[in-house]
Structures are given as C-alpha cells and as structure tokens.
C-alpha cells in the first residue's frame, strides 16, 4: 500500500515538470501581457514597456523559466499580477471554496445517483428506470451554465429560497478557521454560519452535480445490471439470504466498484463545471479565479494554479485508487 503511494507520487514528478514546461511555453504564447491588464484604457506603449521591463518579461523565455524553477525550489510560486498577492495565498483562499462546492456536488450526486441507479436497474423497464435514464441523458446534454442560470432564476430570484450568489451572506460575522465555511461554523459553534454556508451551497452544487449525477446514475445502473447477472449473486440467492443482505453485501458492494473509480475521474470534469457554475454564482473559487487569470494574462497564477490542480487531480485519483483497494481485496496484493 505504502509502496503504491510512494510509487504514484514519484511518478508525478516528471509529469509535473513536463506540465510546468508546457504551461510556461503556453502562457508566453498568449497575446498581450499583464501591463495592459494593469492599466486598462490608460496604457500607452511606453507604460507597458516600462512595466514589462520591471517584471523581467523582456528576458528570454529560458531565463524566465530558470527563474521560475529557482523560485519553485524555494516553494515560491510568485505573485498574481491581478491582485499583487502571492499565488499561494490566492490559492489557499480559493481552494476551500471549490473543494466545498465540489465535495457537496459529489455528495449530492452520490447520494441521489447511486440509489436512483440501483433502483432503476432493479426495476428495469419500469417508469422509474425510464425516467432515470432519460433524466440522466438530459443531465449530460444540458449546458451546465444554462442549468445554473435556470436554477438561480427560479429558486433564488423567483422563489427566494436560496441566496443568489456567494458563499456567505454579506456582512455575516463568522469566524474563519479553515476556510471551509460549513466546517468552520461547526468548529466554532456558530451553527447559523454553517447553515448559512449550506444554503449558499445548494444551488451551485446542484448545477455542478448535474453531470456527475447523470454519469453516476448510468454507471450504477449498468453496473448493478451486470452484477445482478453474476454467478455470486445467484449463489447468494441460492443460500436463501434476506433480500437486504443480497442487495447490500453482494450486489451493491460489487456494483459500486466501477462507480468509485468513476468518481475519481469525475473530479477532473468537476473543475470544468466549476469554472462555469462559480462564475454564474459569483462563488469566488478556483474556477472563477482561473478564468479571470486567463483573461488577464496572470502568468504566475495560471502556472501555479494549474500545477496545483493537476497535483490535486492525481492525488484524488490516488486516494480513489486506495479507497478502491480497500473495497476490492483483489487489487490489495500490489
């Protein structure tokens, strides 16, 4: 187990290094530079040259990359050109928001998707199955940003059930500990803050969950159908076990294996969705931050954030693999 972790982490090094080179080249390919972004309509050519010189952007690419690597060695990812703040600070600020959102979305998708997929499979061909399947098809086909917009228009603006933007009611005095607001509220005993944060999470998480939900429903359904036809389920039935035992221990436990792997892979797609949902709900997480960074040619943020994301993605998938190996004894031998 430990070997696996170490091995996977070591394998990460060349990948990340390669990625950093790619990113570095990429951001330098972007037209325009940070100067115009800083000055807006007021920038003149001379102003821009001055800024670029000051920032060392007139140096050859490899020199810039060298400096970047050298700073990376000091665990310094540089400073955002938009905000003038260390990239690390920006990341730690944005990260909890997206994690909170993503985790909520995945939890929603799992909590709804697995039972739905399971019952759709059990009652194959019933109206439940048909509507679960068509619903999940729709979930994949509806553009996330449009869904987010509709949800907001209906539940926030029309009905006023949920707040329309942000992570927290403005002006709410909540103590920040970890940056995960729901958790913070629980830690500090400010349960109203937790509740507030939960309310803010509902709509964006619903929008974000649409695709994972659809995928989980379909995967669970297909997987359960497959497992239902497996010999060991027949064995379990032949033992006269209670239906609940057959379903839980024999069907679901096996059927969920591929779903678990899928959840890991879904996290990648989740960030795509987060870029869209966060901007609709002004959620201030990684997604919207990266979007502005791209718009504004915020080189250090782009390189830093994307490296973090790649790292996070790999680590999540590593965790999922580990989780997988906990449920599936067959892969434990590695």
């Amino acid at each position, binding site marked *: 187990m430990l070997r696996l972790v170490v091995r996977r982490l070591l394998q990460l090094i*060349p*990948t990340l290094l*390669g*990625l950093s080179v*790619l990113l570095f080249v*990429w951001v330098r*390919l*972007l*037209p325009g530079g940070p100067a115009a972004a800083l000055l807006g309509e007021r920038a003149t050519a001379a102003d821009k040259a001055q800024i670029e010189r000051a920032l060392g952007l007139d140096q050859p690419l490899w020199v810039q990359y060298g400096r970047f690597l050298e700073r990376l060695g000091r665990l310094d990812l540089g400073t955002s050109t938009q905000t003038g703040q260390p990239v690390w600070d920006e990341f730690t600020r944005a990260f909890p928001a997206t994690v909170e959102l993503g985790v909520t979305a995945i939890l929603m998708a799992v909590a709804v998707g697995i039972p739905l997929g399971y019952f759709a499979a059990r009652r194959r061909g019933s109206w439940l199955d048909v509507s679960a399947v068509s619903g999940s*098809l*729709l979930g*994949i*086909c*509806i*553009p*996330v*940003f*449009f869904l987010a*917009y509709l949800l907001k*228009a209906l539940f926030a603006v029309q009905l006023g059930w949920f707040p329309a933007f942000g992570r927290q009611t403005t002006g709410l005095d909540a103590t920040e500990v970890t940056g995960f607001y729901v958790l913070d509220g629980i830690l500090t005993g400010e349960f109203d803050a937790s509740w507030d944060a939960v309310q803010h999470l509902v709509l964006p998480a619903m929008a974000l969950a649409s695709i994972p939900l659809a995928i989980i429903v379909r995967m669970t359904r297909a997987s359960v159908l497959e497992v239902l036809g497996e010999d060991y389920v027949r064995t379990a039935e032949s033992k006269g076990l209670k239906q609940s035992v057959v379903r839980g221990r024999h069907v679901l436990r096996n059927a969920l294996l591929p779903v678990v792997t899928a959840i890991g892979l879904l996290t*990648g*797609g*989740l*960030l*795509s*969705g987060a*870029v*869209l949902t966060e*901007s609709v709900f002004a959620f201030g997480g990684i997604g919207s931050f*990266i*979007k502005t960074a*791209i718009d504004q040619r915020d080189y250090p943020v782009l390189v830093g954030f*994307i490296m973090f*994301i*790649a790292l996070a*993605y*790999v680590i999540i998938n590593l965790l999922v693999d580990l989780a997988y190996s906990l449920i599936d004894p067959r892969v434990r031998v590695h």
Partner: protein
Amino acid sequence: MSTKTDKIDRLAELTASRETTTGNSLWVEAMRRLRRSKMALIGGVIIGAFVLLAILGPWIAPYDPTDTHTWRGEVLTNQNIFVGPRAENWLGLDHLARDEFSRMLIGARQTLLVGIVATLLGFTVGALIGGASGAALTLGGAAGKRFDTVVMRFIDMMLALPSLLLAVSIAAVLGQSLTTVMIAVGVVQVPIFARLLRGAMLAQGGSDYVLAAQSLGVRKRRIALGHVLPNSLSPVIVQSTLSLATAIIEAAALSYLGLGNPDASEPEWGVMLAQAQGYFDSAPMLAVYPALGIIITALGFTLLGEAMREALDPKLRS
C-alpha cells in the same frame, strides 16, 4: 424405396424451419440490432432532422440572419421592448431586431460544423496517437514500450487538466473565432480517443486470434494494422458519436465564457444562447430556442451513441 427420400425431404423441411440464414459481418449484425433499438431510432430521427436543417438552412431561411435594418426600431433592448413570434417572424426578433427563426436555421449549420470538425480533429489526432501507441505495444520490443510510456505520460498530463480549462487555454492563445472553438474542443477530445483506442488495442492484442495470425507467419505490422486496429475501432466509433454531443455542449460553454465566436454573420447556437442569457428576464424565449436546440441535438447524438454502444457490445454477440 421412396420412404428414404421421403424422410430426408421431411427432415430437410423440418430443419429448414429452424434455420437462421445469416452471412453478415459483425458490423452488419450490429446495424441490425441498431435498427431495432428504440434509442437509436429517436437519436437517428433527431440527428437526421438536424442535419437536414443544417444543410437546407440557407434555402429555407426566410430572411438574412444578419439583417438588422428591416425591423430597425421595433426592438429596443434598453427599453425592454422585444418582439415575440408573429406571422412574418415565426420565432420573433432577436435583441438586435434580426429574424430569430432564420438565425436558428443558419445556427444549426454552424453548430453541426463545430461538432463535426472538432470531433474529427479529436478523433484523428487521438486515434493517431493512441493507434501509434497501441501498435507500438502490439509490435512489442523495448522501443515500442518506451514510445508508449512517453506518449501516455503526455496524455496523462492532458487528462490531468480539466477539459474546459484546456479548451479555454487553447482558445486564449488562438484568439476568438469559430476555428478556435473547433480546435479547442477538438484537442480536449484527443486524450480520450487516444486512451480509448490504445486500451482497446491492448486488450485485442492479447487475444488468441492475434497469436493465431502470428503463428500463421503474418507480419507484425499487418497484425497491428489489419487485425488489432480494426477490432479496436468500435469503442472509438461509439465515442465519436458521443463526442459530437460533448463538442456541441463544450462549444456552448466556450461561448458562454466569451471565447466563442460572437460574430453575427455566423450565428451559432452556443453564442446565441450566451448572448440571449443577458435578456433572459425580458425575452426568455431567445435563450430557450438555442438552448433547446443544443439540448435536443446533443440528446440525439448521445442516444445514437448509447444505442451503438449497446449494438456493438461484444457481450450481446451471439
């Protein structure tokens, strides 16, 4: 002795009634299953209608989709005045007083184009990479393995980036245009196709018929290209149908992020949706038309793709 011939005839007659006459390749079989599938039927009808509209659009469209002069002054967005469906404009006028129906028709063409070109790009490049990798592994040898490792590391790198981010990154470099959208959406598909094809080839490469061909003395290159590759294509083909749906949706997302092609001379559903969202309160239908267009088309491709997946599923083969 007539009994002997009689009984042979009788037997022939009885067995004939059970005979299932086939002579079809797997593809033909799959097509037959496909034709029976309700999902495929719905998907096919949707796609057929969509393609027809895309092709005939310019001829059916009653007006020039970029004409802002004819109804000038009737739509005042700053005063919340829009024009809904009416006799001469079946779907009403858009926010710049252009005929929405004509725009939807012409938009179908652009949307289809984006989907097809992007998927084609992803398919071609991905299949080349995955195919080369898979072939290198099938041919064996240390060099093949090393080649595969390098290529797969690269693909992993691409996969570690959220697809939309990748697309946005590409679009940022290339500047805004329809071509950019196609490329950005296409590139995102590359690692998917590459992995899929490589995986399938790897699986096929271990099968007995490959060994059989090898023992026949067939050259490795021919084994890789003549046996392994064709047998690995079905998941890739299914994926390309599904990718068409994804491409259309991703293109819409890019438009929403302002990286689409907001040029009026080329109305495209994604752009139309992104633009109309700003007027959702006053003229929701302007957003609903292109949104429905996108959803239904994507649904069509997804349905067909899923049906194909089922039809080509080796588990269902007799």
